[in-house]
């Protein structure tokens, strides 16, 4: 039921209620880094608990998945959060990707490791055909991460997100799945 992905340095698993304090601490300690790209942190445990419960409901409905990336070397250390939103079947077989990373883990390949595992899961197990991801033009780290994973720039959306009182532009990128199988083929594989 609960998805878990393993990478060399990280364990990715779905959040539960008791992760809410760690998520609040994560948002708080990264507030100055996230300020340019993320909605304002709400210093309220209930807010983060509601987020966990919303993501679990989305997961149960197969509309989305959120995964906490936990450092294998430091038990309990939340290194990042990876989200798939709007998982859609025929005819687009697509989802939107979002992610954030703790400042301590920045620049060491952790984001690539975590996002790469989620992309592999989305293209493999979920058999999605397209993952789109958008980033702020000034967020060069995010652009480098996406290009490194093969995402291709598809456009530039003006005033796409309303964050902290202003509209933000975003660069639109996507990655398509070269090994995507038509649904019938998946069924045949399962029977075989």
């Amino acid at each position, binding site marked *: 039921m609960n998805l878990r992905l393993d990478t060399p340095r990280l364990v990715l698993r779905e959040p539960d209620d008791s992760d809410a304090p760690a998520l609040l601490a994560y948002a708080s300690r990264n507030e100055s880094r996230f300020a340019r790209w993320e909605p304002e942190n709400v210093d309220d445990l*209930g807010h983060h608990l509601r987020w966990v419960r919303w993501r679990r409901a989305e997961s149960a409905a197969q509309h989305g998945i959120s995964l906490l990336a936990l450092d294998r070397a430091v038990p309990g250390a939340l290194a990042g959060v990876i989200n798939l939103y709007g998982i859609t079947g025929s005819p687009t077989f697509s989802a939107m990707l979002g992610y954030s990373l703790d400042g301590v883990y920045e620049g060491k390949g952790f984001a690539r490791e975590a996002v790469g595992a989620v992309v592999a899961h989305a293209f493999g197990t979920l058999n999605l055909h397209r993952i789109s991801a958008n980033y702020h033009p000034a967020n060069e780290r995010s652009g480098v991460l996406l290009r490194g994973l093969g995402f291709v720039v598809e456009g530039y959306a003006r005033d796409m997100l309303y964050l902290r009182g202003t509209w933000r532009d975003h660069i639109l990128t996507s990655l398509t799945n070269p090994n995507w199988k038509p649904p019938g083929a998946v069924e045949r594989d399962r029977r075989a």
Partner: protein
Amino acid sequence: MLSDGVRLATERLILREAVDDDAPALLAYHLRNQERFAPWEPKAGTEVAQHRQWIAWRRKETDAGNALTLLAFDRAAPEALVGIVSLDGFTRTPRRTAMLSYTVDGAYEGKGYAREACEAMIAYAFDVLDIEELNATYDVANARSGGLLARLGFTVIASTPVIPGMERLMRAQSLAVRARAS
């Protein structure tokens, strides 16, 4: 869906869903409790219209099956808004759970009114809504809230980590749960 005008009666309180006409009472409630609520609650609107919007929003959330908000009134003084009790954050799989939250008027504090209102809501959640587990978050500095949850049978299962230097960024808060008696 969850409710069609829920109304609960306790020894000293009537709990019911808010209607448009409650907006002035809600505004007065938030204004007279402003200083008490400030450390724990987001700032409430200062116009009657904002409270009318809040009522409409809670009604919409209730009709969508996402929440239930009840106003508690004093049976001995029917105009007196004693407190607000809410359920939201419902999950249905793998278990039916919800989040409980509450506020109580300063004049009614320390006399068991919050407990009475919460107990009625908890009984409704477990018995009528078939909720299996309730959870609630509270500020560790809000000793009254922690004490209330303990008396209501809640147990703390997780707390925000204590990180030196981060006190100004993050309030110490805890998550408590109470399962339905089997």
